[in-house]
């Protein structure tokens, strides 16, 4: 599992089941063996792929009652799916074999990646897709839509695998950047250096620092460091002040 999402408004956890092409929603207080509240799965869903294609991650937008599922080409290790590369958007309350509300895909979107990741900014109404850079769309974009802005180029320092997130209250995007973490503004456009960078591998020695959680309450960020099987907490008040 390369990403999942907590919905603070409805107190739910939204996760993907990569090998069975499903999105599962559980109570936020779930513990032990408990049935999901809802399961999105079936031919109408258009979900295609596995952990390295579709279903690398899933992101809830509780404000707008939607669930965003990025789908990629796969082919990271082995052949790809041959399917579209983009983002499927489901109604949060969808259950069973349901069609997505909309789909963002096509050459103009610039989403071309084996494992795209997404983050939603419900305040500024934006969707950020990591796919060979950071592609910033209107949250409700669908079809073959061009991004509003693209953060890409040598000054960015590059991007790595793993989650991305938006700290919407400050309009900031946090993305993995070559085994560290970097922060851009949602208003950045083009070949832009990040506002901040935490070179996690350089500091801690651990690789594949792919997961992120923003903790405003303590002015911290937590980073999942996969290769050393650990979770690191960085004090990062600058992000919140």
């Amino acid at each position, binding site marked *: 599992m390369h990403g999942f999402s907590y919905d603070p408004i409805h107190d739910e956890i939204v996760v993907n089941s990569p090998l069975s092409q499903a999105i599962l929603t559980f109570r936020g207080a779930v513990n032990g063996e408990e049935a999901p509240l809802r399961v999105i799965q079936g031919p109408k869903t258009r979900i295609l792929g596995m952990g390295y294609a579709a279903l690398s991650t899933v992101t809830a937008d509780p404000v707008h009652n939607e669930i965003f599922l990025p789908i990629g080409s796969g082919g990271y290790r082995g052949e790809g799916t041959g399917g579209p590369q983009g983002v499927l958007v489901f109604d949060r309350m969808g259950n069973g074999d349901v069609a997505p509300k909309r789909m963002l895909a096509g050459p103009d979107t610039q989403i071309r990646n084996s494992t795209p990741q997404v983050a939603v900014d419900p305040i500024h109404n934006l969707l950020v897709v990591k796919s060979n850079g950071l592609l910033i769309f209107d949250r409700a974009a669908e079809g073959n839509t061009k991004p509003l802005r693209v953060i890409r180029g040598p000054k960015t320092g590059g991007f790595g695998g793993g989650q991305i997130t938006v700290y919407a209250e400050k309009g900031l995007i946090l993305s993995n950047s070559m085994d560290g973490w970097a922060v851009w503004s949602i208003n950045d456009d083009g070949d832009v250096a990040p506002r901040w960078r935490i070179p996690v591998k350089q500091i801690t020695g651990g690789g594949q620092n792919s997961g992120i959680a923003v903790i405003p309450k303590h002015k911290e960020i937590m980073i999942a460091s996969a290769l050393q*099987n650990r*979770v690191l907490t960085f004090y990062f008040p600058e992000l919140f002040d």
Partner: protein
Amino acid sequence: MHKKKTSVRRANIAVGVVLFTVVACLSLFERPRVRQPAGYPQLVSVQDFPTSPDWCPPPASAIRADTNLFSAFGNGSVYAGSPQSGETGVITRPPIRTIRDKDPIYSAVAVDTRYDEVILMDNNNWGLRVFNRLDNTPPDAPFTEPKRIIAGPKTDIQFNNGVYIDPQNGDIYSVETDTGDKVVVFPRDAKGNIKPARILATPHRGFALAVDEEKQELFVGVQYPPEVAVYRKGASGNEKPLRSLQGESTRLSDVHGIAIDPKNKLLYTTNWGHVSDYRIVGTGRIEDPSISVYPLNAEGDTSPLRTIQGPKTQMDWPAQMTIDPETGDLYVANDIGHSVLVFKGTDQGNVAPRRVIKGNRTGLMNPSGVFVDSKNKELWVSNFGNSSADVFPLNADGNVAPLRTIRSAPSNKVSLKFGKVEALAYDEGRDQVWVPN
């Protein structure tokens, strides 16, 4: 109805146990102050946006410099860069907290009966630990020191989940699951940070090993896309498999264990039940976990001879598996059931296990590896959940205490059970962070 129920149970397992909460701070039972549900945008906060072109650094903190966290790091606040300057504020302070289990997490076990040694796979610290077979950690001892450890960057051991010991020369075979995608082979007396004697590239997500000594063939069970790839036992490098068992008819799904019955020429696999063809929309489904049985020489899209599957089986994330060639008893490490299930190799359908080793006296916690020591009539079980391995009589049944236990952590240890953490989610209301395994 029942299928739906069990499917839901499977789905539940996939998260209810995969995800567990690490308490990050205080107020475990504090309820969240949530926003009101809405289907439209709502005002969350009003803040100055700090990254506009005319943005200025914030004023100095009112808190004395020697009383805040920065003083501990010996540096201060790092101002953000801006598009105009092209510079980036680099945060170099170390993490203030680390959640990490430094003890071994044992994914698999095997015994070298010629030398009376037990080899445990440490999935957490990427190593192999070798103990005396008769080691037994006293209840008040924190751990037992291994005789040898094979670990370090030269070894190429990474998230290892399946082990095989050559009964003739003691060679140790280890399959590297996620980032490794290979089988590494060490000589029996290997120690420390050494290169493997042999490396064989295998498909991504290899999870289990078995060898047909008569035919000198190495079987590698692959989680997804589900497959059993069969190589020459002495294969290395990028050598291709001799044959491969895969396809919809095989009913392989999320393979986590394989076993060989050389006497009856049979191959067994454990399947978690997560099914899909990643190239075809809508093929995803969640089935009951199962054991499927094939001819030992099966290849291609071959249907199983029979399948053990259904609620009576008690299977719940069935992991590694081993067979007693003398009795035909099939031992299954039943991870989420905290049990070892014993079937007959001839069983099929929705059948109850012949025996179940389970209960508070057993010491079993998320068992993921099993090994039958036919010579000494013992069953070895490695526990993913508590840094230990237990040994039972081969005929053990019910809530029985192990004959011996090798622990690598204190007796009350409960492992973090991290299995390559790649994502996080924060629950602000409970002040907890979710960590998937």
